[in-house]
């Protein structure tokens, strides 16, 4: 598999993470990003127009 040899993790995540503290909540930045992206995708799915039926009878 050539790809794995050519691209050796261009974004290196093997270093100590950043953590967001909010009261009792402690979230890793990575998890926060994942959750935020999920919420954005959910909202986008609700708002974006869906293709109309091209074969409308």
């Amino acid at each position, binding site marked *: 598999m050539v*790809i*794995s040899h050519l*691209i*050796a*993790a*261009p*974004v290196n*995540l*093997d*270093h*100590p*993470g*950043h*953590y967001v503290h909010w009261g*009792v*909540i*402690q*979230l*890793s*930045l*990575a*998890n926060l*990003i*994942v*959750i935020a992206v999920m919420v954005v995708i959910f909202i986008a799915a*609700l*708002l974006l127009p869906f293709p109309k*039926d*091209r*074969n*409308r009878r």
Partner: protein
Amino acid sequence: MTTTEAPRRHQAQATDAQKWTGRVREYDLVKEFVIALAVVAVLTAALAAIFSSPDEKQVTLSTWSRSAPNDFVLTAAAELDGSSGTASYGAPYTHTPDAAQKIGPVSLQHIAGVTHPINTASDFVLGPLTGVPADPALSAALRTWRAATPEQQQQWATAYDDALTKALDNDPTKVEPGNYGPVPVMLDRLLTTAQSGGLDGALLSQKQFFATDYTKPLLFIADGSYLEDQARAQHLGGDQWGMMNETGSYPGQAWLWLYTFWYQVSPFSTSGNADALVWGLMAVLSLALVLVPFIPGIRSIPRWVPVHRLIWRDYYRQGGAG
């Protein structure tokens, strides 16, 4: 609920169950599936190529005993005198009274019984030492140990454990003189055995050749501070919301947010029964998730929070007739 609303709710339920006979639109399910598969495959390949995945090296008894020898010896002393976490755990490993966690008066842990018995002194210390070849000082120490009464053995082991705990950096070379019998020699040999890699194999192969059960070496390692130190450095500790986290800066298990949340708040954060209580609570909440359609109030939230008006806005705009 008014009398006019009850029949309307029933009517709605009856209508929702009926086969749709209104207007339809073309919808190619197989094409949608193929596109979804392609999208996911490409996304996965890209994410994997860009970010890769973590692989923090495991801790072995060998690496532990070489990186933190004082912690290793202190832990071994606790295994020998029966004061380690594993030795005083209760079911399923030991018969320690009152060790099991409870939910109210019920202890599921206790009821399950000691089904994976571990005697830390013999399994983690004496057994592996017996397999060490040709060491006159060790052989003499083991003879002295075996010839002594159980009370004498306990007295030596506890005295040495206490002395190590008090010593500067828990360093065996800085222990106060005392009556420890053969224990210092035994634990010193256990240390050198571990450092040479002999202990990892000994704990696994005590029963069979093809060993796949790592319970013993894992419990021994987890009784010490070294593994926890490595884990806490990666923010994996229980009070660090560690259940959700991955090593390094990788995304972890965000879906465990509610499970780990309870450990951060009282009464769970200060309770000795935290694991039992949180497990029980999450079992109830998981059941509630499965049974949402039958829970009054919860099942009505979609009506009160009208996200559905966004989803079906075209349908409603066309008068609901399709």
